[in-house]
């Protein structure tokens, strides 16, 4: 017990140490979280009326962000596969940071779903056993299970590894290997289940296309890794962790393939909708050309398209892929492009035109934006703290009481 207390103290101390940049960053996040929390409290007391959500477009910015972040979380698998299945050493060394990012992303996903609920006080109604979870009929019940399961898997894997390292022990890969293997299909499943959430609704032709789940996965394998590549470069800049360029370039190469598939599937969707020109074309038309003069998403969608295509070529050509400057441009383009395409660009056209043909141009309110920023800041803070502990543990600078090793000279 006493050991646990001192160990927790050690961890807290580690979080409390840092340079000026670190504290500025944490303070900024804390401020954003406060702003988001204040906005959310207002939404709680006034109701969802403070959002732009209405009967016509009943899901909005929150669910858009949720969808994008499921992709980010699922992308950890892009590191796990080469690391553990193909034993690619350079990636194996950084897979932990990918898993930690998945933890932060999943936490944000859960937060976004919860703040989108009309009655947060009744959350227990969907729990199994306590409430009346509608499993297996409701895909949302599936999502609750797979998201929490994925969170649990990643927490177990990464915390086990970190705990062993913090105790200066070699961790036994065979113990967590089954979990790691399980995490691969599970990562695919969180994205598939989330896609099926939309996919299964015959009322919404834009979502009711079987290409949805494959496209979800393809785009997830671009956006998540793009975020990771940027974070990895920051990590190796601010810490002693060495991340080989080889690892980064390998991931970038995989991203190029994923983006290629994503673009191909988009093209397939375009062809099918526009050539056949059935009534189900309307949402696509709304997205890319505007419908009956309503076109607020058009500039966003074409930007996303341009970003994704540009990024595809950047990542396809080894010269640009292996140049950190162009690589980073590509990453930013992909993150923005997929954020638009898999966020608002996916959720909103499900509702436009509405089931009775109405076109309500949804655009989030200030409150929604503040709450969203708050959730992102929370995720960033969680990831920051996780890295703050994981980095020194990995480098051997942080050890539990009585387990200290002399710090390596750098």
């Amino acid at each position: 017990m006493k050991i646990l207390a001192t160990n927790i103290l050690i961890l807290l101390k580690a979080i409390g140490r840092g340079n000026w940049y670190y504290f500025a960053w944490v303070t900024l996040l804390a401020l954003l979280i406060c702003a988001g929390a204040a906005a959310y409290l207002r939404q709680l007391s006034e109701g969802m009326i403070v959002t732009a959500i209405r009967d016509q477009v009943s899901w909005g910015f929150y669910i858009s962000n949720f969808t994008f972040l499921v992709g980010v979380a699922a992308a950890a698998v892009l590191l796990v596969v080469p690391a553990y299945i193909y034993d690619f050493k350079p990636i194996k060394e950084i897979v932990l940071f990918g898993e930690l990012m998945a933890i932060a992303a999943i936490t944000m996903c859960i937060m976004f779903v919860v703040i989108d609920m009309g009655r947060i006080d009744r959350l227990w109604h969907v729990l199994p056993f306590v409430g009346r979870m509608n499993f297996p009929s409701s895909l949302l019940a599936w999502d609750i299970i797979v998201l929490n399961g994925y969170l649990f898997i990643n927490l177990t894997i990464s915390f086990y590894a970190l705990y062993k390292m913090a105790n200066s022990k070699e961790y036994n890969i065979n113990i967590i290997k089954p979990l790691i293997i399980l995490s691969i299909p599970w990562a695919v499943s969180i994205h598939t289940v989330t896609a099926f959430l939309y996919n299964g609704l015959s009322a919404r032709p834009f979502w009711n296309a079987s290409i949805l789940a494959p496209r979800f996965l393809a785009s997830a394998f671009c956006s998540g890794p793009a975020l990771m590549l940027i974070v990895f470069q920051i990590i190796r800049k601010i810490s002693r962790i060495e991340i080989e360029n080889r690892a980064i370039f390998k991931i970038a190469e995989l991203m190029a393939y994923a983006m290629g598939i994503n673009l191909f599937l988009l093209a397939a969707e375009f062809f099918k909708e526009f050539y056949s020109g059935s009534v189900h074309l309307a949402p696509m038309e709304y997205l890319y050309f505007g419908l009956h003069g309503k076109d607020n998403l058009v500039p966003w969608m074409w930007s996303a398209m341009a970003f994704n295509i540009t990024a595809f070529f950047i990542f396809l050509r080894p010269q640009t892929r292996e140049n950190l400057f162009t690589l980073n441009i590509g990453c930013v383009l992909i993150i923005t492009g997929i954020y638009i395409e898999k966020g608002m660009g996916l959720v909103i056209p499900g509702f436009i035109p509405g089931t009775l043909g109405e076109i309500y141009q949804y655009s989030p309110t200030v409150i929604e934006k503040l709450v969203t920023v708050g959730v992102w800041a929370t995720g960033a803070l969680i990831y920051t703290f996780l890295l703050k502990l994981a980095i020194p543990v990995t480098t051997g600078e942080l050890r539990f009481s009585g387990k200290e090793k002399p710090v390596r000279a750098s």
Partner: protein
Amino acid sequence: MKKDKHISRRSFLKGTAAGAATLAIPVGNTDASVWEAFFQQHFQEMDADEKARVIERLEQEYKKRYNREFSIKTTDAMPGVLFGYGLDLSRCIGCRRCVYACVRENNQSRDPQIQWITVLRFEKGEKFVSNLEEADKYYYPEKVPEEEYFYMPVQCQQCENPPCVKVCPSRATWKEPDGIVVIDYNWCIGCRFCMAACPYGARHFNLKTPRIREEEINPETHYLGNRPRYQGVVEKCTFCVQRTRSNPGRYPACVEICPVGARKFGNLLDPDSEIRYCIENKRVFRLKEDLNTSPKFYYFFAT
């Protein structure tokens, strides 16, 4: 949305404080009923005693809120009854009497406005049913019907195969033995998945606590029907379960108000019912039949 930009800082802080207060429900001085409400079981899982207790509590709650004596029924479905509805498109003149009779009977929020019936207007000769984009629900001419248009009211179609029920993560909505799809407003978590799943725009969300003038409240209610709703829950048409589910039972409010007699209602299992006559003798169709939701709401052409 525009309005949000103008929220003064004071009102923002006030809202924030109120939000903090709602979060802090479980503190000392709140009375026991708050906890009772919090732990209230699902309607289908309550026995008669529990139901009676809940009804008593709700009646008091509503009395406090609206200064009116409420009666909340919990009548079960009648055996041998499957409700069906017919709407004669060749008669409807688009006068919206049904919309507001429904609002009146079923205690729909006046602010923010909720209406369970949507009347769509189509230009004659235009494609409809498969593509509702050309429909206009905001028409407001001096007089109806207008020469060049026809009208189609849409409300819950009480599907035999309801997609909304399938997706509900908490089983807060279900199909009753008499075919009516109902919601336990005390169990709904407000995730709005059902709204995304409904092909008929029949489900409506309480964006905030519904407001109705005290003198316009209808205090004759059913637990699964027209009793006042709460902030953050979904609501829908129940074929006026509080009126229809009884022997003898009254027609739904929309049927009774219709000045042209375009609305028909009855028991699909009774071969002599009006609705069976419509199905057997008229040209009927059901909205979005390709989705296989199998509505019990039949549009027909009597002429």
